[in-house]
């Protein structure tokens, strides 16, 4: 394992301190906990997310105006514990209730659920939504359901805007659910990643292999195969998304090309070039495109493509102001 770290046991703490020193105008640390909260809170519905670390800038990078009020960081690829999430809920609460944005993983759901029970016992109104945008795994009764991946960033952005506008918790939750039902993601990887405390990669890909439909924790994907050209890979991913979303001519979408940590922007833009061509050719209008590292998996190489189908409401909220360390919209 070759990593720029000091001690695997300290990576989360040292990272959080580093984030706070870099962005003091945006975030501060809840003392004694692995929770980042907004430096300047406002009287509105609170939005909180979190999960295992290793997905930076998710989720601490999205704490700020128009997005999250607090983010809870677990150990690398491990859900934070209920007491940590409970502190996050308290930090995000301004008396108007708190919406928990949870990615669909058993660990995250169980820990956030226990935290919600603690918060409710404390008199805080809590609602939760579960993001399941990854269409690599089928949503059937035989699985735990689709995973939550990069599409989560659109929930933060759009539901965050609804909260910032002063909507109540019921309507913020409704907006979040609308985003979830209209957002889809599909990813692929070129290399694995190593959890610092484990010291070796979660799986191995040969020099000429890629994995289609990977998870963002180095968990195996749906299929290992020989590497192809960027255009061929992109076509496969994006066509699966288009079918799942049942996109039609004249629909309007926003697109995110997300890097998994070790893929250069050059390659992400090459992917976007093809995504753009395929979607436009269908007569679908791309309202907004975001390219960069938003939901990473440590040093994994590869990308995910996220498409969200927009209506007038979602489009307007997507265009609202957001000012956070990792996502800005002016």
């Amino acid at each position, binding site marked *: 394992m070759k990593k720029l770290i000091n001690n695997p046991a300290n990576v989360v703490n040292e990272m959080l301190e580093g984030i706070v020193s870099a962005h003091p105008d945006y975030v501060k640390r809840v003392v004694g906990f692995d929770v980042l909260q907004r430096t300047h809170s406002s009287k509105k519905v609170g939005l909180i997310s979190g999960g295992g670390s290793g997905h930076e800038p998710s989720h601490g990078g999205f704490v700020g105006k128009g997005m999250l009020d607090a983010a809870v960081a*677990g*150990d690398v690829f491990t859900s934070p*514990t209920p007491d940590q999430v409970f502190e996050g809920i308290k930090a995000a609460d301004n008396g108007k209730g708190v919406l928990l944005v949870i990615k669909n993983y058993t660990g995250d759901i*169980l820990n956030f659920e*226990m935290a919600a029970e603690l918060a409710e016992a404390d008199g805080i109104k809590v609602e939760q939504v579960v993001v399941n945008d990854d269409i690599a795994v089928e949503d059937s009764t035989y699985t735990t359901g689709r995973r939550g991946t990069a599409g989560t960033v659109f929930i933060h952005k759009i539901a965050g805007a609804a909260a910032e506008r002063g909507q109540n918790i019921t309507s913020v939750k409704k907006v979040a659910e609308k985003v979830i039902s209209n957002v889809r993601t599909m990813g692929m990887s070129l290399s694995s990643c190593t959890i610092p405390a484990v010291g070796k990669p979660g799986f191995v890909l040969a020099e000429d292999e890629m994995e289609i439909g990977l998870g963002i924790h180095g968990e*195996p994907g749906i299929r290992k195969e020989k590497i192809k050209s960027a255009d061929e890979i992109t076509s496969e991913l994006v066509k699966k998304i288009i079918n799942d979303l049942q996109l039609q001519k004249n629909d309007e979408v926003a697109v995110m090309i997300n890097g998994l940590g070790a893929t250069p922007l050059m390659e992400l833009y090459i992917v976007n070039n093809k995504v753009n061509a395929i979607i436009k050719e269908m007569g679908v209008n791309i309202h907004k495109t975001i390219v960069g590292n938003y939901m990473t998996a440590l040093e994994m190489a590869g990308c995910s493509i996220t498409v969200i189908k927009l209506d007038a409401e979602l489009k307007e909220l997507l265009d609202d102001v957001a000012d956070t360390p990792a996502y800005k919209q002016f």
Partner: protein
Amino acid sequence: MFNKDIIVEIFKEIAKTMDENKALLTELDAAIGDADHGINMTKGFTAVKNKLESIAEEDCSAILKTVAMTFISTTGGASGPLFGTAFLKASSSVVGKDALSNDDLLLLFESAIKGIQMRGKAQKGEKTMLDSLIPAYDAMKKSLDIGDSLIDALNKAEIAALEGVEFTKTIIATKGRASYLSERSIGHQDPGATSCYLILKTINNVLKNRESLVE
């Protein structure tokens, strides 16, 4: 008699067992999950062990509650809430008792399993920890019902748990992260079922050692 000292010793031994099997559990998890099971179990039970060093309570329920809260607040992942809820429900089932009878132990075991089922919304046959725990409970109950000693009953529970672990190799995961692999999960044993087997084996060993000391 099953008292505070035995419970504390059991958890200290479990911490040791988890540490010894950390690599194995992580490897099993890497094959079908996210490679953190060994790390999380070791982290959780080490924290429990350290906490128990200074525990003053005599009452079994209070000790189990401390175990539960410590495990929940240090472990994370799915294991934290699942094992934590199991210990919490076990604690509630024996409130106020300084020592546990065989019937108390059965009730405690049953409550722990029900806690896991409630939290994880899972059943037997879904390639989870329940696939070693439920057969172990059934074997232990059956054994005690026909008048076997606690040691014999725990021996049978341990064997049943191991058979349960073997059984998880033959089935498709439908709960947890392994479910994403569907038929690709066949052939792999479930890490959670494995750690439950290790826990039962450790409990059994602690009691057997105590018995041999008495003899």
